[in-house]
C-alpha cells in the first residue's frame, strides 16, 4: 500500500490527470476509510488465492511433467503432453471433436428454443406464469437425476419413448445405443434441462421493450415478422449474448450429465473433454491430465472469444 492511498486510488479510479490540489480530493470523501475494512475481504482473498488461483497456476507446472501423482520422481517433458494430446491420442481428439459438436448443437438449439418459449410467454397472464414455472423446473434438478430420467426415456426395450411409439405402431430407435446418434440425444436432454433457465433470461429482455414501438409498427402496417426483425431482435441482442455465452460454458461442462446417462467412463461416442480429463486423472496420469485441463480451459476461452467477435451483439440505439 502506498503512503497516500487515498490520492493514488482516486487518480486510478477516475483515470484523470493528477489533481493540482490534493486537499480537494480529500474534501470529496469526508469519512476516512477505516483501515479495519481491509481485514474484511481477507478470508475470501486467502481462500481464493490458496485453493483456486494457486492450483490453477500449478496446473501449468504439472502439465509439462510426466508425474503419475504418487511417486516422488518425475521428469519435465516440455510440451510433450500437449503434442501427445493432439497427435497421438485418438481418445483425446475424439473427445475434443465430440465436445465441439455437442457445444455447437446445444448452443444453436437452446438459444433458438428458449427464445421461442420466451416469445410465447412474454405476457404476464396467469397461464404464462404457470407455464414459465413449469418450464424452468428441470433446471433445479441434479444432473444425475436428469440423466436417469432420460436414460429411462431412451431405454430401447422398456423406455418411455419407444413405448409411446409402439402404441402408434412405429419402431423406435436405439437412441444412446446408436453410436452415430448418441450425442444428439444427449444434446436433446441438455436442452430439456436448461432451456427454461435461458427462457427466463430472454423474458427479462423482452419485457424491457416499450410497447409503443409495436403499436407504431402495427400502424405502419408492419407484419409480425417485420416487427420481430426490426424491434424484437435488436432489443434481445444483449440477452442473446448472455444466453450464448452461458450455454457454451454449461455445455462444455456437461460432465455430470454424461457420466449419469452414459456411465463412468462413458463410451467413446459420448466422451467429452471433461470426462476424458477425469479418465486420464483416474488413470493416474496427473501430468497429462493437467495438460488436458489446460487445453480444456483454453478451448472455452477461445470459443467464448470467437462468439464475441462473431456475434458482436449490441442493443440498437446505444
Amino acid at each position, binding site marked *: 500500500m502506498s503512503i497516500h*492511498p*487515498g490520492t493514488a486510488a482516486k487518480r486510478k479510479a477516475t483515470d484523470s490527470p493528477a489533481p493540482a490540489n490534493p486537499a480537494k480530493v480529500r474534501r470529496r470523501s469526508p469519512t476516512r476509510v477505516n483501515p479495519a475494512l481491509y481485514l474484511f475481504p481477507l478470508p475470501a482473498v486467502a*481462500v481464493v488465492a490458496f485453493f483456486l488461483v494457486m492450483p490453477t497456476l500449478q496446473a501449468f507446472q504439472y502439465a509439462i511433467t510426466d508425474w503419475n501423482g504418487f511417486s516422488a520422481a518425475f521428469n519435465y517433458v516440455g510440451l510433450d503432453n500437449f503434442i501427445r494430446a493432439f497427435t497421438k491420442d485418438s481418445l483425446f481428439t475424439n473427445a475434443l471433436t465430440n465436445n465441439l459438436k455437442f457445444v455447437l448443437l446445444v448452443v444453436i438449439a437452446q438459444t433458438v428454443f428458449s427464445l421461442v418459449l420466451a416469445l410465447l410467454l412474454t405476457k404476464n397472464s396467469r397461464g404464462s406464469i404457470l407455464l414459465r414455472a413449469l418450464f424452468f423446473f428441470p433446471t433445479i434438478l441434479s444432473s444425475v437425476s436428469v440423466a*436417469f430420467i432420460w436414460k429411462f426415456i431412451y431405454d430401447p426395450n422398456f423406455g*418411455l419413448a419407444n413405448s409411446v411409439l409402439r402404441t402408434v405402431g412405429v419402431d423406435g430407435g436405439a437412441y444412446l445405443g446408436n453410436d452415430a446418434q448418441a450425442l444428439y440425444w444427449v444434446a436433446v436432454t441438455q436442452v430439456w434441462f436448461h432451456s427454461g433457465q435461458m427462457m427466463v433470461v430472454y423474458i427479462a429482455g423482452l419485457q424491457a421493450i416499450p410497447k409503443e414501438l409495436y403499436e407504431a409498427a402495427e400502424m405502419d402496417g408492419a407484419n409480425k415478422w417485420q416487427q420481430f426483425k426490426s424491434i424484437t431482435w435488436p432489443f434481445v441482442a444483449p440477452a442473446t449474448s448472455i444466453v450464448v455465452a452461458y450455454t457454451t460454458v454449461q455445455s462444455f461442462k456437461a460432465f455430470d450429465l454424461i457420466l449419469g446417462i452414459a456411465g463412468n467412463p462413458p463410451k467413446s461416442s459420448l466422451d467429452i473433454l471433461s470426462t476424458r480429463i*477425469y479418465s486420464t486423472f483416474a488413470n493416474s496420469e496427473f501430468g497429462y491430465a493437467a495438460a488436458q485441463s489446460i487445453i480444456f480451459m483454453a478451448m472455452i476461452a477461445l470459443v467464448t472469444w470467437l462468439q464475441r467477435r462473431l456475434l458482436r451483439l449490441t442493443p440498437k440505439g446505444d
Partner: protein
Amino acid sequence: MLASLSRRAILAIYAVIIIIPLTVVAFGSFKSTQELFAGPFSLPRSLAPDNFAEVVGGQNLGSSFMNSVIVTGISVPLTLFLASLAGYAVSRLKGFMAWAIFGFLVLGMAIPAQANMVPLYVLFGRLGLLDNLAGLILANVVSTLPIAVFILGGFMRTLPKELYEASSIDGSGPWKTYSSIALPLSAPSIAAAAIFLFVIHWNELLYPLLFIQTPGNRTLPLALLSFQGEFQTNYPLLFAGVILASLPVVVAYVFLQRYFVAGITAGASKG
C-alpha cells in the same frame, strides 16, 4: 387465430414433454420393475414405499442424504458470509484497492473446475482433506465464492453511501455497520445468491467424485451415480433415488418459486 392456435399447440406439447417424464418417475418410484415396464403411465398398484425403504436402508442413501444436508448446510452460509464480507469491503473501499480486490476475487469465475482439479486433489491430499466432508465444504466454498462476490458486491455498491456515513458518524465500527446496515439492506441479493448456491452445492458431483472414497462419506449425487452401476435397469429403485435426491430442492421450489427464478437467473446473467 391460427397463430394463437399454433402458439397453444407448441406450449402444450412442451408442457407434456416436461410433465410426462416427471409423472412417470413419480409413479414408477412406487412400482416394481415388471409393473413399470408393463405400463409406464399407469397408476401404481400400491403406495407401499418399498423402493424408498430399500434405497435408504440398503444402499447408504440415508447417510448420503445426511452428508448432503451437512455439506450444503455449511457451504451455503459460509460462502455467503465470506462473500458478503468481501462485497461489503469492496463497496466501501475506494479506487485501486477496491478494484484490485474485486477483480481478483471475481476472476475465479473464468476458471472451470476441471482446470485445476489435479493440483487441488494433490493439495487436499497433503492437507488431509480427502475423503471427508470438510474438504467438500471447502471445495464448494472456493468454487462459488467468485460469483457470490460478484452478485453481492454488485448489489452492495448500489446501496446509498449516506447510510454508511451516518452510521460511522454515530460511532459504529465497520463490523457494526456491516452487520446492522449492509447485511439487512442486502437481504434481496443474499436470498437470490443463497438459492443459487443451494442448487449448485446440493447437486455438486465433481468434487465428491474426486475426493470421496468411503461409501459412508458420499453425498447424494455421488451415491446416486454409483447406483447406476449397481442397478443398471432397476428403474424403480433409480427413480426412488432421484426423488429422494430432488425432494428438498423441489419442496423449496414449490414455495419459493419466484425467488428461485430470480436467484438462478442472477447467476446465469451475471456468470
